[in-house]
């Protein structure tokens, strides 16, 4: 059979722009009602799936223990968790909808081939609130793509949508670029599920200035925000602050894009973190790491040169998960400082002052212990032990951006709203491109995949 991948249909009922979890949920839902659906993924087949490739779980309400989730996680608790991390910056009705629909989402996915497993070792704190995908997000994508193709969703790779045509306020067609050739597909509707703009270096620089050049992007390089910009330019309403994003502190040696989970560092609570001038800038032991790691991306982003170093000694090296890049090691603090380009005097002074402020306690790396500093600014509230057992180790940290929160404003049908607040009848959004409706700031582990799945399904069923 000749290769037909460059031939696009003249017209379809629904175009789904994007190829991750949200896009698949939308495409499958619409196709199951009989619509002719084409899914256009800009990445090549091996890299398909956007940031969903790097995920491992979704947050979901459940009343009773399931085969893979312990206890129960009720809607009110989910709501409390969400309002705490966002500090109330969320669209309450959309958030409540997302929470309620998170419960049937798991079953819906399982019925379409997605397999779940109990929480991974080292993530037991999430065993009650999050459903883990067996093998991670790429395995979830493989299952959903297999299902989508089995029910004749027309899935295309290397197909970048470059324009959405809007006539008389409604979507009429999309333009797709494949191998430098642009084709037009007439569309009865469109679901935008093409992610944030974090991989668009130019746009990031507009928002963050030159600091953006020092950010690492944890996920796909294909989320360039083309659709977001296109639709904002065509009069759709935005939601969210362009500087808000999911940003964690990751190993500075990770690749610019796509480093994913293995670039994570869990050492921060067990030592101190200094910037390039050798000064501490935040309480490293404020809370257990899973509850704090998402704030450290922004903290490091505000330091000179957007870099910081976690400094630990040999007492605590076994207290955290191994990471993929080896620690920088030196027999003395001065030598360690030289190795990371910090003035030796400055590091020795910071560590000396820290060590003198540590008050004795009983060290418990797994829980909020009573080892803390006294009279130090900023304080270290837990796991404070003197840094005095050579050799000493440093892990360099940079901001690792997962996805940006600036997005398309939607209603409870996942319809994209115009600047005047009216819905654009046949234009829908799901996933990271509209996550800012729910996440004004902050993050709850696994919520990105819940937003994608829930609003993907809503978009898919509203669109037909």
């Amino acid at each position, binding site marked *: 059979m000749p290769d037909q991948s460059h031939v696009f249909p003249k017209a379809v009922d629904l175009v789904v722009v994007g190829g991750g979890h949200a896009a698949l949920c939308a495409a499958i839902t619409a196709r199951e009602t009989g619509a002719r659906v084409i899914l256009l993924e800009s990445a090549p087949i*091996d*890299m398909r799936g956007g940031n969903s*490739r*790097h995920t*491992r779980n979704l947050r979901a309400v459940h009343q009773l223990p399931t085969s893979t989730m312990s206890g129960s996680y009720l809607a009110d608790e989910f709501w409390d968790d969400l309002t705490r991390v966002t500090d109330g910056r969320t669209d309450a009705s959309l958030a409540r909808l997302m929470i309620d629909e998170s419960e049937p989402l798991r079953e819906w996915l399982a019925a379409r081939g997605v*397999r779940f*497993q*109990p929480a*991974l*070792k*080292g993530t037991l704190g999430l065993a009650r609130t999050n459903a*883990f*995908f*067996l*093998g*991670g*997000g*790429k*395995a979830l994508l*493989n299952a959903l793509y*297999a299902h989508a193709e089995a029910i004749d969703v027309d899935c295309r790779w290397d197909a970048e949508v470059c324009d959405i045509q809007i006539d008389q306020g409604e979507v009429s067609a999309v333009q797709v670029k494949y191998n430098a050739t642009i084709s037009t597909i007439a569309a009865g509707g469109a679901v935008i599920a093409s992610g944030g703009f974090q991989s668009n270096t130019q746009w990031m620089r507009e928002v963050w200035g030159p600091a953006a050049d020092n950010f690492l992007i944890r996920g796909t390089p294909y989320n360039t925000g083309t659709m977001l910009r296109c639709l904002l330019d065509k009069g759709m309403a935005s939601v969210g602050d362009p500087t808000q994003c999911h940003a964690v502190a990751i190993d500075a040696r990770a*690749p610019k894009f*796509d480093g*994913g*989970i*293995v670039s*994570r560092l869990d050492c921060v609570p067990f030592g101190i973190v200094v910037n390039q001038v050798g000064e501490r800038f935040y309480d490293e032991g404020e809370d257990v790491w899973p509850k704090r790691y998402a704030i450290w991306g922004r903290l490091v982003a505000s330091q000179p040169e957007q870099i910081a170093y976690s400094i630990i000694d040999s007492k605590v090296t*076994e207290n955290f*998960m*191994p*990471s*993929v890049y080896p620690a920088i090691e030196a027999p003395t603090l001065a030598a360690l400082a030289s190795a990371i380009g910090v003035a030796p005097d400055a590091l020795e002074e910071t560590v000396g002052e820290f060590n003198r402020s540590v008050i004795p306690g009983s060290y418990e790396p797994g829980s909020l212990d009573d080892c803390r500093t006294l009279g130090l600014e900023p304080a270290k509230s837990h796991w404070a032990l003197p840094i005095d057992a050579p050799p000493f180790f440093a892990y360099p940290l940079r901001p690792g951006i997962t996805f940006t929160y600036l997005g398309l404003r939607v209603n409870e049908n996942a319809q994209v709203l115009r600047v005047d607040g009216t819905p654009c009848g046949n234009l829908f959004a799901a996933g990271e491109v509209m996550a800012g409706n729910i996440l004004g700031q902050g993050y709850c582990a696994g919520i990105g995949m819940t937003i994608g799945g829930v609003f993907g399904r809503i978009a898919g069923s509203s669109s037909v």
Partner: protein
Amino acid sequence: MTSAVIASDRLTEARRVAEICNACRYCEGFCATFPAMTQYRTFDEASLEYLANLCHNCNACYHACQYAPPHEFGVNIPQALAELRADVYEKWAWPGPFARLLERNGLVVSVVTALSLGAIFSLLLYLQDSTAVLSAHDGPGAFYAVIGHGLMVAVASSTFLFSTLALAIGMYRFAQSIDLKPPTWVDLSRAGHDVASMRYLGGHDNDGCNTSDASFSNARRIYHQLAMWGFLLCFAATCVATVYDYVFGLVAPYPFFSIPVLLGTFGGVGLGIGCIGLLVIKHKSDPQPMAASQRGMDYALLVLLLAVSLTGLILLALRETSAMGLLLALHLGVVLAFFLLMPYSKFVHAGYRFVALLKNAQSERLP
């Protein structure tokens, strides 16, 4: 490159990918290899060689991996561990100088098989006149009219015993290197159950494993079970026949409805179907997660075992005709080759895998 350099490259690559896996851990639910990996913070040679032999090449992790090629991390666990396994087979082969037989193993298996056949046919030519070989025989002792009982027993038992010893020494040395404690009945029964059910080719919830693409199938598990159980039935047939001969003085060939012939027939059919199935699956498999350097070794054992099965079944079908003499020689030549090659072919994977499963059972029991 010398083989020592290649070996250290393979170890380096296995360590590199294992360190990435250990920082990710998404694959923990697939098989025993990933939970076993989390017991290490650093990977020395022995730990990697243990993990390599615990891996059943089900490929689930390859298809689920966000770091698989073309990602710049290029994580390909099934391939890296398969290549390291080949080094383990060579490293512990006994006697040492024979380890080189495991290199270019497809060629070695072909040459040894040809030499075995040549030897058997030459003996026949030298010891027997052509009338004895080419005429029909029946009744007890028919086989021995072609090839003498004493000679058959002497050649078979000496090669088999030597090969079993060589295999056992290799397994023992590997077990020592990965610090396997003397296994308890619990360890043996768990590892035995893992082998008998081929649990780790069953994937999650018995969905099966990946062969040609990201979809799951139990085909490989089923054909591998047929081959294994078929092989064991053939072996049982030989043992029963030995007891018949030496304890009860019953002389082969035995009637079709006798224990040795029934065991051999079912075993031979299972082995044959299993090998054909595995050859087809291997041929259709996605080459990406496979180790190209292992292909010759993999195919060679399957073809050799298929030849054992087919020549045995044809001999059974035609044993009362004048073709029996030549068919017997052919079958014995192939069986002789298999006996000689047991410790110097892919067959060794069974032993090393069992040792790794014992270690896994032990570490689950003694965390």
